[in-house]
């Protein structure tokens, strides 16, 4: 307990670091992932095939390997982002791969006959996307997006492996000078569990709201 009190400010800083990294990575990877999904859907094979390969690679590799690549391999070719920068880049690369799939599935679920209808009405491509397609995609993709976030925040613990002083790293340093490692690791796990729980509540709220109110859970 004493260790925890002594280390409390560091735990607080670490929690704050974890949260802002998560928010930044989520925002950037959602925006890029959604844009790439639209590109892949409408630009055809030359774009969608490389994107599929990208997404398969980064969803299949352990996050640790991606982070090590950013942290150790990039400096070898002259690009040193530091530990936090490497972690953010690594998680964003992985995040884009997942967001791409989530939004692609959302786009596929939109009834394509709607595009005929909008063309018949004389709506432009951009107008159709903005007013008709994207609002539907967002509704369909929202539950999967929230599920991904709730499961993804815990992955940030891996950043401790590339010297980012997030919660798990501070814990690792603290247990070196403590005789209560179990307690300290439980504290770290609880901090993550608290953040994840908030996201799980968000997930439940979003999926209820978007599946009942719009009845869009039907098309998968």
């Amino acid at each position, binding site marked *: 307990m004493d260790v925890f009190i002594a280390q409390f400010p560091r735990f607080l800083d670490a929690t704050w670091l974890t949260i802002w990294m998560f928010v930044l990575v989520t925002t950037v990877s959602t925006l890029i992932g959604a844009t790439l999904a639209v590109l892949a859907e409408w630009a055809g094979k030359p774009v969608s095939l490389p994107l599929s390969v990208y997404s398969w*690679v980064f*969803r*299949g*590799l*352990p*996050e*640790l*390997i991606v982070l*090590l*690549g950013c942290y*150790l*391999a990039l400096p*070898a*070719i002259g690009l040193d982002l530091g530990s936090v920068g490497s972690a953010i880049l690594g998680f964003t690369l992985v995040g884009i791969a997942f967001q791409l799939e989530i939004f692609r599935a959302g786009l596929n679920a939109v009834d394509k006959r709607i595009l005929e209808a909008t063309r018949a009405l004389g709506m432009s491509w951009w107008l159709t996307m903005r007013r008709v397609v994207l609002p539907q995609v967002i509704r369909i993709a929202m539950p999967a997006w929230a599920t991904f976030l*709730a*499961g993804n925040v*815990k*992955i*940030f*613990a*891996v950043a*401790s*492996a590339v010297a980012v002083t997030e919660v*798990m790293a501070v*814990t*690792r340093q603290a*247990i070196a000078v403590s*005789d*209560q*490692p*179990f*307690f300290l*690791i*439980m504290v*770290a*796990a609880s901090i*993550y*569990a*608290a953040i*994840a*729980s908030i996201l*799980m509540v968000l997930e439940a709220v979003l999926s209820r709201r978007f599946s009942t109110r719009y009845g869009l859970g039907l098309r998968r």
Partner: protein
Amino acid sequence: MDWTVVTSNAPLFVSATLNTVAIAAATIVLSVVIAFPLAIMRDSRFGFLRWVSAGYSWTTRAMPTLSLLFLAYYGLPQFGIYLDPVVAAITGLTVIAAGYNMEYIRVGLQAVPAGQYEACRALGIPLSIALRRLIVPQAMRTILPPLTSNLTLLLKGSALASLVAVTELSGQAMALISYTYKPIEILIAVALIYLCLNGVLVGVQRLVEQRYRLQD
């Protein structure tokens, strides 16, 4: 680039790959064994058992996998329990995987029509025998597809074992990088091995899906 760092260390890569496969295989088997009773408890008549099982499910979904591995490796010595790194890694990964698997198993058991349970009772078949011989074999067709598609997650998770001093693929990669300082070559080689293993898992998944679709 200097690929001799990979070719000259090929035996190390091979044994590290085998360690990764062994850890993942042990985890899947053990986690399914643990997940079955948890899934059955989830719909038990006794509130206490339901509560324990729901709590387990929530905890494992909310806690980082890495924290479970740390608890097993760095935490348990506080109580005089010293686990071998590999055992600690498998323990941590199994606890997490069981939390996910219990949900698939539960869905599978619920997908078996109520009439099947009723027929078993009407024939006087005790629940333990009914589950083992009649209900679970039917539930497997619902359980196996998500279970196999989750093998990918398990393989990715096994990389965390390197952070509790296990020399599986990721651990071997980190060790070799620190001796040789050739991060690009080593990481590309390891990434390719992971992707190949992943390809094998995708194949297994296809086979499972095909087999169960044919039977319908």
